C-alpha cells in the first residue's frame, strides 16, 4: 500500500515549491485584475474585453484649485490625476517560506539512463507539470538509482500509523513586493498623465477685498 503511493523524492520536495509558485502567480494575477478594474475605464470601449493589449482609458480623479492671475483675478484650475496613483496597489510576494516535513524512504529503484525517470508506470513527469528529476549515479556502477519515499513523521505517535497521515508544516512570510519593471513603467505613465488646465467654465470673478 505504502509502496504504491510512494513518490519520488523530487516530487515530494517539488510539490510544495510548485504550490508556492502557483500562489505567487495567483497574487500577480490578482494585482493585474485590481489595476485593470480600479484604474481603467472601459465604458464605451469597443475592443473585446479579453484583449490584453487594451485596458481602456485611465480613470481620473479631478481636483480644483484657485490661483491668482497676472492681473489679480482669481482663476480656477482643474487637475486630473490617475486614480491608480492615489491608492496603494496591492502586490504581495512570498518573502520567505519554511517547509517542515520528514520523508520516509521506502524504496530505491533502478531507472534506465536513456529514458526519463517516471515514478509511476504510465505517468510522465511532464504530465504532472514538474520537470524531470536529476538523479545520482549509483557509486556501485549499476546505472542510475532513484529513491522513493512518502511523508514520514518524527513523532513517535504518528510513526505507528500510516505515515501518509503525517502533516506538513508550512511557514510563509508575505511582504509587499518590490516594484516590478512593468509596474514601475505604469507609475511613470501615471506621473505623465497628471494634467493641469484652466477651468474656463468655472472661472471665478475677482474676490472683493
Amino acid at each position, binding site marked *: 500500500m505504502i509502496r504504491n503511493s510512494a513518490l519520488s523524492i523530487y516530487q515530494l520536495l517539488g510539490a510544495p515549491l510548485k504550490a508556492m509558485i502557483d500562489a505567487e502567480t495567483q497574487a500577480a494575477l490578482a494585482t493585474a485584475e485590481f489595476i485593470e478594474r480600479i484604474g481603467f475605464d472601459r465604458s464605451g470601449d469597443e475592443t473585446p474585453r479579453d484583449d490584453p493589449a487594451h485596458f481602456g482609458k485611465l480613470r481620473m480623479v479631478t481636483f*480644483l484649485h484657485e490661483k491668482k492671475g497676472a492681473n489679480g483675478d482669481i482663476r480656477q484650475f482643474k487637475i486630473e490625476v490617475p486614480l491608480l496613483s*492615489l491608492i496603494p496597489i496591492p502586490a504581495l510576494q512570498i518573502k520567505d517560506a519554511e517547509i517542515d516535513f520528514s520523508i520516509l524512504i521506502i524504496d530505491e529503484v533502478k531507472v534506465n539512463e536513456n529514458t526519463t525517470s517516471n515514478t509511476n508506470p504510465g505517468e510522465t513527469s511532464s504530465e504532472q507539470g514538474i520537470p524531470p528529476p536529476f538523479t545520482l549515479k549509483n557509486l556501485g556502477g549499476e546505472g542510475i538509482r532513484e529513491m522513493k519515499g512518502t511523508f514520514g513523521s518524527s513523532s513517535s505517535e504518528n510513526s505507528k500509523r500510516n505515515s501518509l497521515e503525517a502533516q506538513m508544516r508550512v511557514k510563509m512570510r508575505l511582504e509587499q513586493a518590490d516594484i516590478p519593471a512593468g509596474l514601475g513603467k505604469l507609475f511613470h505613465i501615471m506621473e505623465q498623465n497628471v494634467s493641469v488646465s484652466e477651468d474656463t467654465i468655472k472661472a471665478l470673478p475677482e474676490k472683493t477685498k
Partner: protein
Amino acid sequence: MQPANPSTTPGVPCPDCNFRIPVTIPMLLMNDAIFCNSCGLKLSIDREQSEEGLKLLQNLNEAVEKVNRVKSNPMEQHQVF
C-alpha cells in the same frame, strides 16, 4: 526600512511647488479638499467629475474595512460574509 519611492507613494504632485501630497483612501472619501504640506495650496475634490472613481474607492474601502474587522475579530466572520 527604506523611504518610500515618491513616484510609488499614493499622492498628488502639488501643481504649485511640485511637493508630493500624500493621499489616503479615507482622505479622498471623507474630505472635501486636501492641502499641500509644503506650500499650503488647497486642492478641492471635484466630486461630480470624479463620481465613478470615488464610488469604486468607496467599495474598496468597505471591503478593506470588512477584512480588518474579521482580522481583529475572527468570530465576526459569519456575520460579515
